[in-house]
Structures are given as C-alpha cells and as structure tokens.
C-alpha cells in the first residue's frame, strides 16, 4: 500500500510544484514568519525594562502559533490543487481506472499534500528560531536563549503533522462539493484556519505537557475520524457520480 502511494505522491508532488501559486507559498510563509519574528522580538526588546520570563513566554506563544499555523497554507493549497484540481482538469477518471485501491489513492493524496508542508514547516521553524535568537543575541545578550523551550519545540514538531492531517482530511471532504481549486481553497481557509487557531489556543495557555499530550491525543482521534470519512468520500462511485 505504501509503495504505490509513495510512487503516486512523488509524481504528484512534482506536478503540484509546477503551479506558481504552490511555489509562492513557501516563500510567503518564510518571509512572513521570519519578518514577524524579527520585528516582534525587536519591538519587545526596544520597549525596554522587560522581564525575562514574561518576554520568553509571550514571544514563545506568539512564535509558536506562527510557525505552526502559517505553513499549513501549503498542505491546504496542495490538497485543493491535487484533489479538486484533478476534477477541474478532467484527469481524475484515468487515475481512478488504475488498479490503485481506494486506500492507496487517498494515502497518495495525503502524502502529496503533507510532505512539502512539513518540510516547509520545519525549515521555517529553524529559520525563525535563528532570526529570533539572533535579534536577542545582538540586542539583549543577557537573555541568552528565549525560544523555543523543549515543550514549544516538541509542539512545533508534532502539531504540524497532526494539523496537516486534519487540514487535508477536511479538504478531501470539502473537495467533494467544490468545483474549482479556488473555491476549495477559500472554503478550506475559512473553515480550517479558525478551527486550528481555536484548537491551538488551548496549548497557548501554556498549561504544560499534560494538556499538550491530552490535546494531541484528541486531535489524533479527530484525524483518524476525518481519514475514515475521507476514505468513504474519496472513493470511485461517489467521485464519479458527482463529476458526471
């Protein structure tokens, strides 16, 4: 199952990155989070007399949200392009006619949307950490290292995976009703981002490891349910009946 899905995802990723929109997203994500992180750090430090602990908590939670949320634009857009786009461009039927199983097809689509998203998320995380701590190093060397602490780091590694599954699962479900990539992407953005911010605000409260672990298990459970629903919808008869 993984072998076929992986082969499919490799080809699809290559195709998806031919879209200029898709190629723009990593650049936008990196510029936005690096600029935002640098400016935020600079502003907070230049206001003067800031308490080290408060500084670190505030900056950490803001940057935590930025590095987890912003890169999600990519899996959402790729999912829209590779699922609804395939309907829009009439290439779905030949693909469905191949011996791939429903599970392989869906897994292939998930991998296509998630892998570039995660690579961008982690690359972006590394850059943002460098920039934020770079600014701190030059402006207030006494703080040494402000972000991330171990919990934020683990969150910034684990949560993009859990949220990306959530986002792509929702996109598959949306894509059944959307007829153009643009429509799907819009709906996806409107539906998914607030849901994520809401989910993340729980972690933002800084309630520590326990809440993070429990929260992650809940999201993982939601992911699993969404995948099951997606598997039922991303399936030959309903797809073809709707496409006509």
């Amino acid at each position: 199952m993984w072998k076929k899905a992986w082969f499919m995802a490799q080809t699809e990723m290559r195709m998806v990155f031919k879209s200029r929109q898709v190629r723009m997203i990593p650049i936008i994500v990196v510029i936005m989070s690096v600029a935002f992180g640098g400016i935020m750090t600079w502003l907070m430090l230049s206001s003067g007399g800031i308490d080290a602990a408060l500084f670190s908590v505030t900056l950490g939670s803001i940057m935590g949200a930025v590095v987890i949320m912003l890169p999600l634009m990519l899996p959402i857009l790729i999912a829209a392009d590779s699922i609804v786009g395939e309907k829009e461009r009439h290439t779905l039927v030949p693909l469905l006619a191949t011996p791939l199983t429903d599970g392989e097809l869906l897994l292939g689509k998930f991998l296509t949307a998630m892998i570039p998203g995660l690579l961008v998320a982690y690359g972006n995380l590394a850059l943002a950490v460098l920039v934020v701590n770079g600014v701190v190093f030059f402006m207030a060397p006494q703080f040494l290292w402000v972000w991330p602490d171990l919990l934020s780091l683990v969150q910034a590694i684990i949560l993009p995976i859990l949220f990306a599954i959530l986002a792509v699962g929702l996109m598959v479900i949306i894509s059944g009703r959307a007829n153009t990539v643009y429509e799907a992407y819009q709906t996806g953005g409107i539906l998914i981002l607030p849901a994520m911010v809401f989910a993340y605000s729980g972690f933002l409260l800084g309630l520590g490891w326990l809440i993070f672990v429990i929260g992650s298990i809940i999201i993982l459970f939601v992911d699993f349910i969404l995948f099951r629903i997606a598997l039922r919808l991303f399936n030959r008869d309903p797809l073809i009946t709707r496409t006509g």
Partner: protein
Amino acid sequence: MTTSIEMVDLTKEFAKIRAVDNVSLDVRRGEVFGFLGPNAAGKSTTVKVAATLLVPSKGSIVIEGYDVLEQPVEVRSIIGLLPEDGASTHYDRLSAYKNLEYFGRLYDVPEETLENRIDELLEFLELSDRKDDSPATYSTGLKQKLSIARSMIHNPQVVFLDEPTSSLDPIMSKRVREFIDTQAEGGTQTFFLCTHLLSEVEALCDRVGFISKGKLVEVGRPKELRRKFWTLRTYEIQLTDSNLQKSGEIITSTGLAKSVKIEGSRIVFELENAETKNPQIVRALVESGMNIIELRERVPDLDAVYQKVIGGN
C-alpha cells in the same frame, strides 16, 4: 468461444434517471464488440460500471472471470480504458512520455519492459517526435491518440474504448481505426467499443449491440442488423449525358425499384435486396447505351436506423 465480458441484468440508476436498464450481454474473447447508440443511451455509464468506477444498482459484470463488485482491483488491472472525452484527460504538467510512464507504473508494467512498450506505442501512433512535449500543446487528434496509448500501456486483456473517434477529423479517425484494427488482429485482446457512428461499427466490429434509452435492443453481426433493420436502401446514379429522363424510365421499367426520382443531375432510387437487384439495373442501363459515372449508396442518417430498430422491437 470463451466469454470475456458477461453482463447480467445490469442496471444503473442515478438520482432520477435509469441510465442502464437490465442489460444482459456476452462479449467473446478476442472480438471487437460495438456498443452503438445515440447520445445519452447509457454507453458511457455501462463502461464506467465495467471499469469499476460506478457501482451497479442491480445486476453484475464479470470480466475475464473477475466480478466488478467482488474483485475490482483485479478487474482494473486487466482492462484498459479510454474514457469519454479521453482527449482532455492528460496531465498537462507532464510530458506525453511521462504521462505514459506514470500510468505504466501505476498499472505495474515491469520497469525493464516499460520503456520499450511506451516507445512502441508512440511509434505506432506516430507520436514519437512529440513525446517530450506537454499534451497541452497537442491537437485534439494527438491527445486522443495519447489516450489510446495510455489505455493500452499495460497490454490489457480487455480494452474499453468510449467514442474513440468523436471529435477527430476524418483523417485522424481513419488512423485511429486502423490502429484499433491492427491491435485487434491478434485476436487475443477483447475490444468493447462505444460509438454513435454506424460506419465505425461496420468498419471495425465483429458484433454490435444497439442500446437505446438504457435498454439493449438488439445484438448481432453488423451485416445482419443492417439487413434486418435497414432493408429499403437508397442509391443514386450519375450519368455522363443529361439523358436523365430516359434512364429514369429504364430503371422504372425493370420493376425492381420501389421508387425512382430525379434530383438535380442524379437519379435516386430505393430498393430492397440491392445485392441482386443493382447489377440488373446497371445492366439494363448499359445495354440501353447509358454511360454510368457513379453508383453509390445514400447512407441514411443514423437516427433513421435507430427509429427502425426501436420501432421494430
């Protein structure tokens, strides 16, 4: 004769429409079977059920021993599909070659033979010199040929071709038909060809099934069907001189034609059993000193034939 495709009471309903209505049909291994019917008859829906893309509402299809509901993966791996509007189904972001390579691997064509297979198909369909271009730059005819190549990439036991020549110009249609004909010569591959063109069926098919409004109306050899449903045939004759009136009288006097008319510079007549009567008419004309330039059949439009088929059932 071994059965290749067996449909039993096949029915497919959409929300309001019964697109395929109780179709039972046997297609033999190695034959080219024509599935002939007007627009919206249910041809594409039948093919989609056979290709496991749609689930039948009732009934079954078994292809080379595999049931579409029970063994869909096996079915998909032994059939090839040229879908309706096949020309518009390529990945424009890949070259033509890469399109074929992608599908070849999805169909599990062994890597060591895939390259040869692609080259062979591209060569045969005269696409080799354009193989590195995106299908987006192709004409409709070339795109359709690429779809045909894709449907045959894994050398399938059964090939479903849904309107392979619609949207093609006559020359391209002819090439595509020649390709299908050559492929079918081997006699091991089964072809299921949907079309609304009677001429296509007559050129390519061993047997034909008429479908209308979801119902299979008649199955037989093209010649038999033609004889059965299309007995009164229309011919026109063109002569060197303008002695139309006299020629018309000669034809009338043979008593063989059902009707004789003069239309412009031609004589138009209708008759049954043309195979035996036309030679007699020609002889009569020649013996009276008339010089025939051309005798040809006026092929009635398909609607007329369908009307007869449906009316006569």
